[in-house]
């Protein structure tokens, strides 16, 4: 009897352990692993997180698009619009749409109505997270089924950026959005190379090729986007061949480790996320500019970048991330000078040291960097007290104006205007009804920020942005620290169809050309 049981158990184990039967190699399936437990919001006008944005880029088009592999506004190319004209004053724009573009499934052909609907939806705070970006639009109308006219209240730095395949510029099907209602948030319908086939919450999102895609039938048949929150499991799944592309976070050690694996290609891509220490100018002792200057002198940006890793981090250049339209790449930042920092503290009456409170997230990538800042400040006698809370609590508390020094990392739409406006413009100060993320109560550059946003002359505009950045640096509203690049890895048999150097959508764009050899 015992022997039979053992034999049966052995047989069962052997059957279970035998390799799975390989399905017929008819379909090209890309398995992508993401560090998240689930999607957040894949409604194109709501998607802001790292796990959501790439998905939107596979589903949707804009009137223009970021060249795949590029995050530069200077390299926008025609997408749903084939051409456009603008009036001399820069306020009226007319876009001519591509003919015969079909929405996913049976949602019909794209017309100017869909574009008008999408942009109006993106401007409405009830349906969009990016409405403030579109507040400048005065009217949008369909001139005829293939022509859209946009009239602005005032000329802006980059209208094309607002109608690109990014955030509110993504064009969706009016019919689908109206018919699906609340379900649209998990089944958005666009014109892109892939369409949503199945969503399993907490598990995966499956997309299939849109055979009617206007640039041609996609070479990849199916994308399985898997949510794998545990880092170690995600890496193991990638190494065992169950994933083709994997999110690598921002970790130098991860880069080093993965680079040693056979058949693995590691990609370190821009845009960078800028980490900044925002100093609350209304809170003691930071209300004293000498204390803020002391902090700026005490911080060693090179050491921070080296700590984060040579391949994945670079020292910050300004209070706006590098490479954005209008970033002052040669801004005069405070040099590392601990002696000067000590002098300033003494002058301010803190010869015996000073305590600065900081609410800090427990997210390891951010916490470890904050601890390096803490040790740098300690050397000059500044005691940065980190009150560590979980990431969601951190987000909530810093918005209630509870933190003295706030360590924050962010990437934004690559125009200086957006970053300046959200972080250093007085209406964005936390606590106000119009608050965004101005944690420092910075208000020294309002005039320049406002003037730049309506300046038609590009050179003058850049000059205004430059002045604004220098004023913010000199007032020490914030101390820029380092910039963090993003890391992805793919198997060498994955061919993106373009050079994957930048990811404005925070992940690889899967185009009609992307395939697996």
């Amino acid at each position, binding site marked *: 009897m015992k022997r039979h049981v053992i034999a049966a158990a052995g047989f069962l184990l052997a*059957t*279970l*352990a035998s*390799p*799975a039967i390989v399905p017929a190699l008819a379909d090209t399936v890309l398995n992508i692993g993401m560090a998240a*437990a*689930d999607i*957040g*919001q894949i409604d194109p006008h*709501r*998607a*802001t*997180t790292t796990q959501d944005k790439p998905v939107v880029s596979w589903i949707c088009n804009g009137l223009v698009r970021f060249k795949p592999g590029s995050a530069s506004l200077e390299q926008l190319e025609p997408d749903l619009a084939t051409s456009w004209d603008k009036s001399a004053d820069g306020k009226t724009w007319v876009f001519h749409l591509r003919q015969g573009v079909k929405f996913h499934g049976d949602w019909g052909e794209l017309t100017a109505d869909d574009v008008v609907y999408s942009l109006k939806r993106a401007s409405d*705070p*009830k349906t969009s*997270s*990016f*409405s*403030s970006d579109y507040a400048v639009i005065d009217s949008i109308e369909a001139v005829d089924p293939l022509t859209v006219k946009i009239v602005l209240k005032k000329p802006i730095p980059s209208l094309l950026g607002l109608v690109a395949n990014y955030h509110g510029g993504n064009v969706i099907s009016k019919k689908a959005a109206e018919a699906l209602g*609340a379900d649209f*948030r*998990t089944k958005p319908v666009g014109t892109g190379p892939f369409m949503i086939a199945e969503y*399993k*919450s*907490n*598990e*995966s999102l499956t997309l299939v090729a849109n055979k009617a895609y206007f640039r041609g039938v996609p070479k990849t048949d199916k994308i399985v986007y*898997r949510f*794998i*929150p*545990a880092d*170690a*499991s995600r890496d*193991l*799944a990638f*190494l*065992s061949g*169950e*994933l083709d592309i994997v999110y690598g976070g921002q970790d130098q050690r991860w880069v080093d480790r993965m680079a040693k694996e056979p058949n693995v290609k590691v990609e370190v891509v821009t845009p960078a996320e800028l980490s900044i220490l925002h100093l609350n100018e209304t809170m003691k002792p930071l209300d004293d500019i000498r204390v803020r200057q002391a902090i700026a002198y005490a911080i060693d940006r090179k050491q921070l970048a080296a700590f984060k890793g040579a391949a994945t981090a670079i020292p910050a250049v300004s209070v706006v991330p590098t490479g954005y339209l209008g970033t002052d790449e040669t801004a005069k930042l405070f040099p590392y000078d601990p002696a000067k920092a000590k002098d300033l503290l003494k002058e301010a009456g803190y010869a015996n040291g000073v305590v600065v409170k900081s609410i800090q997230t427990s997210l390891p990538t951010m916490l470890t960097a904050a601890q390096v800042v803490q040790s740098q400040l300690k050397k000059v006698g500044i005691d940065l007290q980190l009150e560590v*809370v*979980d*990431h*969601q*609590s951190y*987000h*909530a*508390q810093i*918005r209630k104006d509870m933190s003295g020094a706030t360590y924050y990392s*962010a990437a*934004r739409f690559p125009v200086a205007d957006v970053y300046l406006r*959200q972080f250093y413009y007085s209406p964005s100060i936390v*606590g*106000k*009804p*119009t*608050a*965004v*993320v101005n944690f420092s109560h910075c208000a020294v550059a309002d005039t320049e920020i406002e003037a730049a946003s309506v300046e038609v002359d590009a050179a003058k505009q850049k000059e205004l942005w430059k002045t604004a950045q220098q004023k913010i640096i000199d007032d020490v509203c914030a101390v820029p620290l380092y910039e963090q690049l993003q890391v992805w890895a793919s198997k060498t048999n994955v061919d993106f169809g373009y050079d994957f150097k930048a990811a404005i959508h925070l992940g690889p764009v899967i185009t009609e050309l992307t395939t697996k050899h």
Partner: protein
Amino acid sequence: MLKFALKRLLLAIPTLWAVLTIVFVLIRIVPGDPTIVILGDQASEQARADLREKLGLAKSIFSQYIDFMWQIAHGDLGRSLATNRPIMSDVLSVLPYTLELTLASLIVGTVIGVPLGVLAAEKRDGFADWFARVFSLAGLSFPAFVSGILLLIVFSLKLRWFPVISSANLVDPIERLRALVLPALNLGLLMVAYVTRVTRSGMLKALGEDYIRTARSKGLPSRIVVWRHAFRNALVPVVTVVGLYLGVLIGNAVLTEIVFNRPGIGKLIVTALNQRDYTLLQGLMVVTAFAVVLANILTDLTYGLVDPRVKTE
């Protein structure tokens, strides 16, 4: 028997009420704001306030509490704040996976733990005893995410016997069973540790009793003495541990589900917590609380079956 079961069920009501109240309060003590998750970090304060209003978070805590209790009393768990889906259907869609994992682990824990414990007691201070003690100590001290990763490295990455992503193919029953092996082992090993220890000590006590000496002196074979006489008397604490473990396993499933990428209640709890999805989190806590209470009632009922001396009347 029926009367006993009914009485136990009635007694469970105040327990559940207390648990629900604690859940409600705890969730609201945790700082955080679901609107940041839903609207993204670039939304204005005004938009956030509007959303809070819409989600019913602007109401007073007390009226939220009344709403919550009223809903539960009607068997309605409400809708998720983040996805707006009915919570009941979300929970029901993952519940089978958690139950499957829990039961499989329970089997692993009992089938390995009980014989190991009996063997250890029988050959006290022998090799089996030493092995059982080391093994259970290891089982107790390994966190599930460490043992899980080790299992994955050996059996999935090196030997390629089992998939890393357990949820890759859940339609094919063979594949589904294959994907269950490692998670069940991982979760079950923790339980083996406890079951072994309890069985061992229960057996040691039973084996020292007079009736065992009598049985042995009657010339009964050792197998009969150990299993029929001693083991039956050592069973009550074992059943207690196994029963209580049903609840513990549901809780511990969180880590195992995440490491092995299995859908389930545990994974859903983590998602809900990260998104500050109060209603979903509440719903999940309610379901878990019910499961634990139910497991306890079942344990109580089993006592009567295992040991006729325990009166159920």
